């Protein structure tokens, strides 16, 4: 019993140490909303949907590279979260919990449809930083520039899809979603060391695949 308690305490302390203050604040706010939902205020769950729908959709989309499947899986994620909300004890943040549901649903979907590979992409929204990268890669303008961006997007997705599911997931969560190693480890249910090694290996593969775009 003492050892079990020690393990739990270590987990809690570890989480507290690794979580940033913003994340902790966010987790506390979410926990308050979750408590309301658990008490019967079903409408409060809508606030959580609106808050996390883009992030959840983005994760799923980058994992399966299909916008229709991504929308479907993101909706399923929220339905599952709503159905299981009473079992959420607040031991992890709601954000981590809902991400884990999304990742598991996507993994199941990808394993079921391993042979069906149909990609459909969202448009790249040009912002300051995106434009800088594109301008560094090409000096084309107009339609040529659009064609180049489309081609680059396809190459990027192709390179990501060549990775194994676990490697793709680590790259997506770290590089695209901007999560920390410990958060990824918690979502994927593995050690931080495993996350680091998977990330390193995945980046090596991507580097080799996208060599022609790197300057």
């Amino acid at each position, binding site marked *: *019993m003492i050892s*079990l308690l020690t393990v739990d305490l270590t987990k809690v302390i570890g989480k507290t140490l690794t979580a940033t203050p913003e994340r902790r604040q966010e987790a506390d706010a979410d926990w308050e909303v979750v408590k309301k939902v658990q008490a019967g205020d079903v409408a409060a769950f809508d606030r959580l*949907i609106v808050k996390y*729908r*883009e992030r959840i*959709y*983005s994760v799923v*989309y*980058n994992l399966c590279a299909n*916008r229709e499947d991504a*929308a479907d899986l*993101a*909706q*399923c994620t*929220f*339905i599952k979260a*709503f*159905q299981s909300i009473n*079992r959420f004890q607040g031991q992890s943040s709601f954000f981590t919990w809902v991400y884990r549901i999304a990742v598991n649903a996507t993994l199941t979907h990808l394993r079921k449809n391993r042979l069906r590979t149909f990609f459909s*992409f*969202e*448009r*790249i*929204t*040009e*912002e300051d*930083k*995106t434009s*800088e*990268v*594109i301008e*560094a*890669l090409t000096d084309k303008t107009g339609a040529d520039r659009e064609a180049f961006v489309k081609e*680059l*997007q396809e190459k*990027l997705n192709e390179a*990501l899809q060549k990775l194994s599911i676990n490697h793709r997931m680590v*790259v997506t969560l770290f*590089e*695209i*979603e*901007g999560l920390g190693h410990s958060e990824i480890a918690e979502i994927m249910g593995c050690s931080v060391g495993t996350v680091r090694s998977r990330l390193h290996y995945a*980046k090596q593969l*991507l*580097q080799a695949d*996208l060599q022609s*775009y*790197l*300057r």
Partner: protein
Amino acid sequence: MPDRRSIPPARVTLEDLLRLKRAERPPPEFWSEFERQLREKQLAALVERKSWWHELVVIYQRIGRARLPLAAVAVLALTFVSVRYYTQPGEMPVIAERGPVRLTPALPVAAQPVSTAPIAAPAPAAVVSQPAEQPSTVVEKNAAVVTASSSGEVGRVIPWLGDVFENHADTSGLTPSARTIAANLATAAVMEPELLDAVARSRGFEERAMPAAYQRHTAEALPTAAAVADPRRARLLASLESIGAYVPEPSAPEHAKRSVTRYLAQDGWDRSASRLEAEGNRLSIRF
């Protein structure tokens, strides 16, 4: 989502390329459609009837949370009970224990002829001229053993167990289960001798009752057990001790006489004999 670093103008890294993926976002109108579909799915999920085993899964998941503490408690309890059981042999349950048992020669079990005497070397006779009259002596010899004590009584029925009791007059050296079995067998020997005989002859009884002792004594007990299995056969074989000479049947063919002589010269011919018959002053042996 904070960017980790700014992009140098003339250099594009892998991280910069992956940052482009962040910019792949659906248009704002996508979210209204998303919400509408989500509402529909939520309603469908509410209406959907869950199968009967779904509740079982939920219960299992609830129990599953406490499975580690439950398993630890179970192991501790089992350990506690086992240790307690083996450190307090005096409190063990014994079926109808009645203290030391004294058997009298009049007990019916004593009258059963059992041969534990060593069987003599095979006499060279396929048809012997003397009748088998010695078995009565054998019976008396074994009856003396049987009536010696309760442990001797048990030992008669189960030879290796008898040896255990003789070597452990003070049973404190035995395991608790061995003591229990001994006490129960002794009681059974007095109350239900026929039942004890039946139990002892049942296949695998010794192995189940006392595996360790069984393995130790199997080697010595087997020849005796073979003799005990058929008292009449044992009696006839024992009578061959006093046989003087092998007298072949004059009318028997020559090759039969040779075969018989060869069989009788072999060690353990008595085990290969399939049938023994005494008739008048003749003893017939069939191989």
